[in-house]
């Protein structure tokens, strides 16, 4: 089994996840590698169809057939110091990882909780599933968890059903549920997308605070670069199943080395600069076109058809190039950016 530097909790190494539909193959995740260090947050950014969610589902081994990890390693360091390759683990062993070692929260706080059980019931179920606690002890822990995620009147909220809570409250409850067994890694798949901006900021604050308190690592899946600046240490930008740019969050915001990341940043509307020099309203700057289907990728660089910097060489597929130390870019023209 491969070695893993001590500060790394999760290493995704040349991961390929394919969906085989008859004779056609969708390369949803194609040669993706990144590390998640202890106590840090890695953001995986991309549009719909870029493969970011499939990456997280691969790590959880929750892929539904025909989805399959075809190649690569997902090395994970357990709490007791063992290093496991999640990509080849049996479902039985995987179940021990889920929840206790790696937990996950999802995009829809409205439907991620079972409507038929109280929030308390669900957290207690979770705790007792992984730890030999009595109902009363588990309930006490559940209350502490709700307090931890700053839900007021935690004792009363334990006996409430999800429909009695607001979206933000439910996402908090979901976070409490996910964290109730002290996972070392939290995978958050667009946890704030369905929430309005103020609640989004609160949830991000909460995640940051929890990270500082508990010391867990977070793998944050999002399409919103604004959120990334708020929470992530490292950023992996994905496009059509591949990593196109990979660096620290600071560096990315300072200097993008891939036209796609630059386009993504330009998409974020800026309220302070919504008028041009003559006072006319500025339009939003979308990236023209759509993410190509992973079933039918263009030849060469997959971003080329939408790229303003396209040159003849883009017919040729660029590898992940080292643009600067600790800054990778899959673009022939990264030096021109």
């Amino acid at each position, binding site marked *: 089994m491969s070695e893993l530097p001590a500060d790394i909790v999760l290493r995704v190494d040349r991961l390929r996840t394919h969906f085989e539909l008859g004779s056609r193959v969708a390369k949803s995740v194609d040669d993706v590698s990144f590390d998640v260090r202890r106590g840090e947050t890695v953001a995986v950014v991309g549009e719909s169809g870029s493969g970011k969610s499939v990456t997280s589902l691969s790590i*959880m081994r*929750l892929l539904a*057939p025909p989805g399959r990890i075809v190649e690569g390693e997902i090395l994970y360091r357990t709490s007791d110091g063992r290093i496991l390759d999640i990509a080849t683990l049996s479902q039985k062993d995987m*179940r*021990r*990882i*889920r*929840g*206790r070692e790696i*937990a*996950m*929260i*999802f*995009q*829809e706080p409205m*439907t*991620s*909780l*079972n*409507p*038929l059980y*109280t929030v308390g019931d669900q957290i207690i*179920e*979770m705790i007792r*599933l*992984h730890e030999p606690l009595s109902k009363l002890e588990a309930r006490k822990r559940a209350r502490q968890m709700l307090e931890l995620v700053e839900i007021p009147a935690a004792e009363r909220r334990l006996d409430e*059903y999800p*429909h009695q809570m607001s979206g933000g409250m439910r996402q908090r409850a*979901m976070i409490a*549920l*996910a964290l109730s067994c002290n996972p070392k890694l939290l*995978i958050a798949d667009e946890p704030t997308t369905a929430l309005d901006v103020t609640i989004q900021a609160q949830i991000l604050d909460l995640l940051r605070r929890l990270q500082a308190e508990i010391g867990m690592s977070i793998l944050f899946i999002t399409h919103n670069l604004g959120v990334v600046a708020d929470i992530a240490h490292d950023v992996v930008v994905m496009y059509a199943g591949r990593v196109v740019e990979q660096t620290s969050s600071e560096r990315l915001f300072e200097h993008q080395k891939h036209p796609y990341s630059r386009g993504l940043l330009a998409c974020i509307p800026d309220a302070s600069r919504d008028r041009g020099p003559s006072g006319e309203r500025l339009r939003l700057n979308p990236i023209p076109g759509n993410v190509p289907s992973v079933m039918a990728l263009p030849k060469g660089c997959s971003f080329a058809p939408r790229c303003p910097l396209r040159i003849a060489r883009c017919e040729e597929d660029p590898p992940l190039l080292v643009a600067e130390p600790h800054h990778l870019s899959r673009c022939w023209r990264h030096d021109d950016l």
Partner: protein
Amino acid sequence: MAAVASNPEQVRFLTLLIRRRTVLVGLMVLLTIACVAILAPVIAPYAPNKLSVVNRLKPPSATFWFGTDEFGRDVLSRTIYAGQLSLLVGVCVVCFASVFGIALGLVAGFFRRLDTPVARFIDAMMAFPDILLAIALVAALGPSLATVIVALGIVYTPRLARIVRASTLVIRELPYVEAARALGVSTWRIMTRHVLRNLVSPILVQATFIFAYAMLAEAGLSFLGLGVSPEVPTWGTMIAAGRQYVGRADWMTLFPGIAIILSVLSLQMVGDGLRDLLDPRFRKDL
């Protein structure tokens, strides 16, 4: 009540049950019918098979409240006695079909690989006309009360299985099932706690239908001589026998018919109310 309901959840459930009037009425009617059937030997004014040639096809009167049939037997007494077997058949068939239907449906809906064979098997069974399949099964197993129950149970299993499968397919894909899986909940637990629990309402509704169908189908089988022996009255056989006399002696079909309607209706009222009670989103409005 404190002895029965020790925890607060149960107390709340019982108070809601009492507040919900349709459930209460349904429950009372159902219990009355069941009690009357069980206590038939005490309550019935005559023996169910006591013949009286002079009193053939008499309309309802002070002596014979529900009238008499073509052999002069008291329709009231027969209706009371018939409840025993009819309810027994209904309950047993529902239980049989529920156990197998839920198991098959869950398996088909939950495990993609088993879906096609199980679903096709269910479809194949449903392709047979109900009564024909029951006749074939009874013919193969030999007529008796137990075979009638088993045969009808087999006949109605696919109905439940189909509904359970369809709903399972939907629920399986819901985010909270995926969330549960992502937090390490086992497949068995997801099936019972998260999926099955959500299927209670469609199952309850379907079960009440099957209860009614089973009582009528039993009549059909008995009418064809494949059910229980003819001297034992059931509501179904009484209606079947009374059919020839509709217009001349309506009471022969009317009263067992009312008995069937009442039991099915009350069962549905209870089922409906239970469904609402079990769904926390409705509880607030109760």
